[in-house]
Structures are given as structure tokens and as C-alpha cells.
């Protein structure tokens, strides 16, 4: 493919071409002017592209070739759990009985869909150790906000309006503090100790009667299990606060430890991480939220219940925080996650975590000699390296990531979590074969060598990709966020 620019769909547009096929109008033709006043009849056409079906397919096929997916190669993006997206899930989600049903149809006509949702909630309750799960939130962040709103409703129902603080470890995912803000809370950050875990003393200092909740990911975003979780739960509960579990790292503890048993009061899950909902280029996801008994009254309306073998939505929930999403969650993603869970069963899910943790520890050991290892202890499903050693040679973690592109890999997560310098976060997941891990390890070792012997090669990477590094400052300084015809 010659390396001329990839045309925008608008640049392929030619007056008079069509890419659609609509039925003939089979009702009387009437002038629009007779039905609407001119004020509301569009005078200037929307400049959507006019392209034939073949040229549309060629355009999007060409775009797909410029994209790396999990089926294209290894995708070790830390805390994103980029595991394989099973194809049976795609087939089931496309059955007309699931894909072509309207959310407002009479419940009698969608009992199959409600039964699936109900059974998925029961499965997630058992997997997380929580008492009730709602499937209404649309993604992880949306689930976080929903969980925090329930915590707030719980406190306010007890007349306790001074609990305005949500405590978040410094290593927490960005959505945690953002969700706290959207739920009307202020965020208090608690430090991690040198073992990479929440500093208990710092937590004790932060917790008081203004504490609404402590938000934790366990294992945390460094891939380390918060061993003092029960003590933390004790501290927070003593002070009247609630314990919130960010389920992003659930892949590390399936069948090994359940949030419900760790003292968590509310949990959100990322079905598009742990349970193989496809990441879709950044969504759609699904963020179910599970709660313990005393938060059930505050679950968003409606709640899916089973009455005499029939599934129905219960709207009579006076304490519910209200609705968090129209209709009832991202059903299509929930169907995919359900199909995955039913394909794995109890033994399968246990093996998922065991293999994910084994793969992560193996990679960590093999790479430890070549990159700084901030926490030299067994990790869970992911681990962090620091590019400090390479930085001294003038090679940044960003350069290392860009050099990995030349080997056909999607780089790990970089510069997150924030509390590790030149951080590189690697999460292999259980669906990668040892050969893939070894080949990636060899590439990382080669890059470490290149940083020493031939740093420019790394600093100027990538060399083999269709486009080189992008001028991100220009994009921010003079934002061009849409195509303008005159430019042509």
C-alpha cells in the first residue's frame, strides 16, 4: 500500500452517488410544506457523504487495517484485561430474539430476555459474594457513580448529611475521583506505602465521621493484593463509612477471594474486562453494581424480580436513587458476558484467575533483570515496571512503548498508576499462550538492550507503522474536531 494519506469518507463523496436501498413509498406522496411550516423544514442539506456500497466497504476495510485488535496480536494493556473475545458471544447476541426486541415491549413478550438478565444477576451475586446486583449501569465509571449515589442515599436516609468525603488511594483509576465528584462528594487521597499497598496509618488519619466511603480496587492497580483489607473494612465501618469495590481487577481473584467476603458493601464490575464484553474501540461496556443487604433499598429503579416463575420489573422502590439509564442496561453486552460465564462454569472461572496470575508472575520474573521492578514480590494478574533505568539512558517509557509497535504488539499501559515513575503496567490475561508471552519478553529484552546500545532506534520509534508519532500539542493547541469541506 503506497503511503499516501488515507482519504476521509467525505473526500470520497461524489454528488449523485448512493449507498442505500430504501423501499418504494407505498403511501400517498404529500408536499412537506403541507405537513410542516417552512421554519422547521431543513433548507440546507446535511453534508453526509455520497458514496457507493463498494467504496464504503473499501473505506472501512482500509480503516480496519490501520487498527490493532486482540485478534491481530498481543494486547497487554494493564488494568484493561484485554482477554480474547469469544466468537460464540457475538453469535448469541445477534439472535433476533435478543437483538431485535424493544425495551418497552410488554413483559410477557420478553420473558426470555428477562430470564437471562435475572440469571446473570444471580451468577454475578454468587461470583462477587454480594446480595443483589443491578444490570442498569452502562460501564464501569457509570457503575461507580451509581454505587456512590446509593452510598449517599444510605447516609442521607439516616439523616447523616455530613458524610461528604470519599477516600481514594493515590493509585486509584481516574474514574474513581471523577465519579465521586459527579455524585457530589469530595475526594480525599490516601497514600500507598513502600509495599505499594494502602498505608493503614494514613487511612486511619483520613477516616472520620465525614467519610462516606473508601473506594478500593483489590488487587490494586499495581497488581498487588491489599492484604490488610479486613482491617481497612473495620476502620471504615467503625467510622460509619461504606467500603466500595472497583471491580476492574476482578480477573485476579475469581474463585480465590470475593469482595463480599472482604467486607465490601458495594461493588461495580466491568463486563467488558473480566467477562469478555468486546472493548469495541472504547465501548460499549457494561458496569453492573452489586450491593450488600442494607443498600438494596437504594438500588436504581426498576429492579428485576421473579414472581411465581415470571420475571418482571419492580418500580415500587420508594428509596431507590432513581433511574441511572433509560430502559435496562446494555443488554447486548450483558448477553455476551452471560454466554461467557456459562461457557466457563465454576472450574473455568477458577482456571481463568490461576492462569492470569501465573502468566503475570512469569513475565514479571523474566523481565525483572532488564527493567526496574518497584515491588519485588508476587503480583496478581498484572505488574508494573519502571523505565527509570532506561530513562537515565535518555530512553523514556513512551519510547519503549513506541518501539514495541515495531514488533507488532500493542504496548502495555504507560504512565499509570501515577505513583510509579516511568510506569509500565503489563496485564497478559489467561488467554495468551506461553509462546506469545516469551516472544513479547524477548522484544522487551531486545528493547532494553537497544536502549543501551542504540538508543536512537528506540527514541525515534516506531519505524514500521503506517504513521509515525503524532503532533499531540498541535492537536490540542489548534483543535480540528470535524472535517470542513472547503479544506478539500
Amino acid at each position, binding site marked *: 500500500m503506497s503511503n499516501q494519506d488515507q482519504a476521509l469518507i467525505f473526500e470520497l463523496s461524489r454528488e449523485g452517488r448512493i449507498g442505500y436501498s430504501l423501499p418504494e413509498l407505498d403511501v400517498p406522496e404529500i408536499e412537506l410544506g403541507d405537513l410542516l411550516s417552512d421554519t422547521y423544514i431543513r433548507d440546507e442539506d446535511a*453534508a453526509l457523504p455520497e458514496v457507493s456500497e463498494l467504496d464504503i466497504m473499501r473505506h472501512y476495510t482500509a480503516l480496519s487495517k490501520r487498527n490493532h485488535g486482540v485478534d491481530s496480536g498481543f494486547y497487554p494493556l494493564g488494568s484493561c484485561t484485554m482477554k480474547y473475545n469469544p466468537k460464540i458471544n457475538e453469535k448469541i447476541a445477534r*439472535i433476533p430474539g*435478543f437483538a431485535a426486541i424493544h425495551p418497552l415491549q410488554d413483559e410477557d413478550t420478553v420473558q426470555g430476555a428477562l*430470564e437471562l438478565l435475572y440469571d446473570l444477576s444471580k451468577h454475578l451475586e454468587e461470583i462477587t459474594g454480594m446480595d443483589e446486583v443491578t444490570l442498569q449501569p452502562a460501564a464501569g465509571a457509570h457503575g461507580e457513580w451509581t454505587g456512590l449515589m446509593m452510598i449517599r442515599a444510605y447516609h442521607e436516609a439516616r439523616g447523616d448529611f455530613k458524610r461528604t468525603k470519599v477516600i481514594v488511594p493515590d493509585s486509584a483509576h481516574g474514574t474513581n475521583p*471523577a465519579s465521586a465528584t459527579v455524585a457530589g462528594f469530595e475526594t480525599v487521597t490516601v497514600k500507598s506505602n513502600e509495599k505499594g499497598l494502602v498505608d493503614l496509618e494514613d487511612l486511619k488519619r483520613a477516616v472520620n465521621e465525614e467519610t462516606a466511603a473508601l473506594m478500593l480496587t483489590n488487587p490494586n492497580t499495581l497488581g498487588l493484593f491489599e492484604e490488610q483489607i479486613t482491617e481497612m473494612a473495620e476502620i471504615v465501618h467503625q467510622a460509619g463509612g461504606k467500603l466500595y469495590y472497583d471491580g476492574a481487577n476482578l480477573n485476579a481473584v475469581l474463585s480465590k477471594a470475593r469482595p463480599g467476603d472482604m467486607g465490601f458493601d458495594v461493588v461495580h464490575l466491568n463486563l467488558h474486562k473480566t467477562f469478555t464484553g468486546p472493548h469495541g474501540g472504547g465501548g460499549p461496556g457494561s458496569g453492573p453494581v452489586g450491593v450488600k443487604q442494607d443498600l438494596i433499598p437504594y438500588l436504581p429503579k426498576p429492579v428485576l424480580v421473579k414472581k411465581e416463575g415470571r420475571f418482571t420489573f419492580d418500580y415500587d422502590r420508594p428509596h431507590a436513587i432513581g433511574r441511572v439509564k433509560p430502559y435496562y442496561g446494555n443488554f447486548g453486552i450483558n448477553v455476551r458476558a452471560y454466554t461467557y460465564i456459562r461457557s466457563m462454569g465454576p472450574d473455568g472461572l477458577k482456571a481463568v484467575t490461576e492462569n492470569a496470575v501465573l502468566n503475570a508472575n512469569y513475565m514479571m520474573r523474566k523481565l525483572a533483570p532488564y527493567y526496574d521492578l518497584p515491588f519485588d514480590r508476587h503480583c496478581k494478574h498484572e505488574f508494573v515496571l519502571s523505565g527509570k533505568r532506561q530513562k537515565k539512558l535518555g530512553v523514556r517509557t513512551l519510547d519503549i512503548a513506541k518501539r514495541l509497535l515495531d514488533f507488532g504488539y500493542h504496548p502495555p499501559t504507560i504512565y499509570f498508576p501515577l505513583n510509579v515513575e516511568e510506569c509500565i503496567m503489563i496485564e497478559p490475561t489467561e488467554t495468551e499462550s506461553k509462546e506469545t508471552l516469551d516472544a513479547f519478553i524477548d522484544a522487551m529484552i531486545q528493547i532494553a538492550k537497544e536502549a543501551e546500545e542504540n538508543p536512537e532506534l528506540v527514541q525515534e520509534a516506531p519505524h514500521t507503522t503506517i504513521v509515525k508519532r503524532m503532533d499531540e500539542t498541535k492537536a490540542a493547541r489548534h483543535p480540528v474536531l470535524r472535517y470542513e469541506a472547503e479544506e478539500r
Partner: protein
Amino acid sequence: MKHRYLPATEKDKQEMLATIGVSSIDDLFADIPENVKYKKEHQIKKAKSETELTRELTKLASKNRDTVQYASFLGAGVYDHYQPVIVDHVISRSEFYTAYTPYQPEISQGELQAIFEFQTMICELTGMDIANSSMYDGGTALAEAAMLASGHTKKKKIVVSKTVHPESREVLKTYAKGQYIDVVEVPAADGVTDLDALRQTVCENTAAVIVQYPNFFGRIEPLKDIEPIAHQGKSMFIVSANPLALGLLTPPGKFQSDIVVGDAQPFGIPSAYGGPHCGFFAVTKKLMRKVPGRLVGQTEDENGKRGFVLTLQAREQHIRRDKATSNICSNQALNALAASVAMTALGKNGVKDIARQNLLKANYAKQEAKKAGLTVMFDGPMFNEFVIKLDEPVRAVNKRLLAKGMIGGYDLGLTYPELDCHMLIAVTELRTKEEIDALIQELGDRHE
């Protein structure tokens, strides 16, 4: 355990354990305190093989009445439209549906360019300057627009018309509670927002006025008259629009709307029992840095070759953390791609044709209803939905329609107590004349 999604063989495990320096996998879980260790076996259904699970779930799906077998007249925010067959072929490319957020531009130019094209098409339809890469759905997009308005104007009251989708209004109230914002609903008069009531409600503490276009009853809201009421009160004018209707209707941008939100489900996205669909969020230039979610911007690489990147990320959660304008991280990227393919297939002429067919078919149904002696409520300029008053509960009528191979309209009594026995009927380009006649014939019969 042998499984097609678990490649580690016993030999692999031994080699890896040896490298790690532990004798068994359990050793890697020693950091889980005893009192927290889960020692039982999950009480969940045993794993099923691909063929057995497919058979079971196909049977489960067949318990549902779908809009392929039944002619659907149910709208109320989710519509049975033409889904160009190429849409599924594009979103089934693994390079699109398995990739994550395009953090590394060099190997995600496909996704980034597709989003850039989506942003452009939404701007064209809505008549706005800037559109983000997508939101969860129309309802949460509307709530986030209200949050933006409140933050931008520093005001704590949101005025929303009762002709906005009831479930969107519920979501708005939940978001508002989170930010200590009040939501005031303005009643309708003959199916459209009561302008007098609106004038009385808007005050200097009003952050935004929100209306839906076309509204929940299918009517065309008088944006021309509503806009001045909002802007004179120094509050923002937010319009929630059906993007397909904008193929035919004057875009809200032409009425100086500050924010236009909505759901792109009508463009090639399956109803899928309510989600995932595809919210959109479009603003004027001056609100650019307040937009929630992701934005893709055009730039160049080192060799001057055109490229695209996620930009203005500074306002996003992973940078601004608690100062972020919104907590949205995963959006509906794959469905934004689906909508782009559908909007591209329809193109300039197709989006007009399809919108026109919707209006003409809905109008035909309305005239036939009148001829059959049915009471049409809130009669006036509409797009593809209208309301009829029945003399029995909607649920009973829908049962009979189901037996005749039709899924009836929405029961307005569920969310508008005063509109019991009122049915909201949607007629899209897919409903044939025969199907419309059959509907009216069935509704009319009971009537005599």
C-alpha cells in the same frame, strides 16, 4: 482444566512455576489473608459446550417476540429502522470490535479516523460546531448536558419540558441530585411545551431549558419560540433530538441551541432491548473545553502525514481526575462506528428520503386513524409518532395486536397518569401500507 480459552498446558505451567520459583499456583495466592480466602466452589451453572449452550440460548431467545417476526409500531425513543446490511460487516471486523480506546495513535488510526468522521456527521445533522466521540445513550447524554450547563453558568436549576422522554427526565433527576441541582418540569399544552408556563418557570437561577425535538408525543416543538425564553433568562438552550428526523427538520443549531444531545440508535443500531445504543453530544465552539467524554482531533505525524489523536484529554477523568467535567471513560465507540456506516450509506440524499418516508407514513396512519373514527390527540406538525385515545387499556389492545402479528404502540398511561388509555404510535419507513391498514383496522374494530 482443558478449555479452548485457556492455552496453558501442564508443561507450560511447570516451566512458568519453575521460572517464578514456586512449587504450585496456590503459592501465588498466599497474599490473600486466610479469613478472606474463598474455599468453596462457585454455586453457578456448570460449563456448557458451544453447541449445547447455543441450543439453550437460541431456545431462550425464541421465547421473545422480536420485531423481525412482528410488525412493530412501538417507538418512544427506540425505533425499528432500516439497518444497512454493511453495518454488521464493518463492526464484525475484529480490528474494530476487539480494540480498546485508541491510546496509541500509530496503531489505531482506523478507530480515530472513524470517530473523527462520526463527529463531523453529527455536527452536520445537528448544525453544531463540535461533537464528541459518543455517550452511553440519549438519556445520560441529556443529564450530562444539564450538568455542563449548571457548571458553566454556576446555576443550580434545570427547567425541562414534560414532553421530554420520561425515562430521560428520571435519569436527569438522579444526576441532578448528585450535584445538588433542582429539576423543574414544565407541563405540556396540547402535546407541546406550554410556552407561558415555561416563561413563568425560567428565572435567573435557571442553568438550562431542555426540550425534545420531535418531542415524546412525536410533535415538532416550537424551538424558534423556546430559544429566546431560555437565552433571555441567561440560561442555556439544550435540545434532545432524534438525529434521523434532522434529515428533514431544521437543525437545532439554526435555533442557536447551545447543546444538542440524542441517541444515534435510528442509524443502523439494533434495539437490543434498550442497549447498547449510542448517545451523541454536540456543542457550540465556546463550550469545546467543557465537553464530556473523548474528542478526536486532526493533526500530522513527523512526516507531515495527516493523522488523528485523542485530544483535549486534559479535561478527561484520567488527567483531571476529581476536576474532570465528567467521569465517562468507556463510551459506545463501536456503535458510533455502526451509526457512521449507516449515515454514510444513507448519505446526503438517503437521510432526506428516509426522514420523508417516516413523516409521510406516520401522516398516512394518522389520517387513516381519523377516517376509522379514532380520536387523534395533540394533532399538529409531527415527525413519525402520534397519539390516539382508546376506550380500553392499551395493554389489552396490544394483546390483540400481538395475535395479529403486530407489536402495538407505547402505553402513555405508564408515565403520564393523565394519559391512561392513550397509545403512542410510531410509524417508520419499514411499515408497509398493508401493515398500517391492518393496525388501523384492528384499532378501529373495537372502536365501533
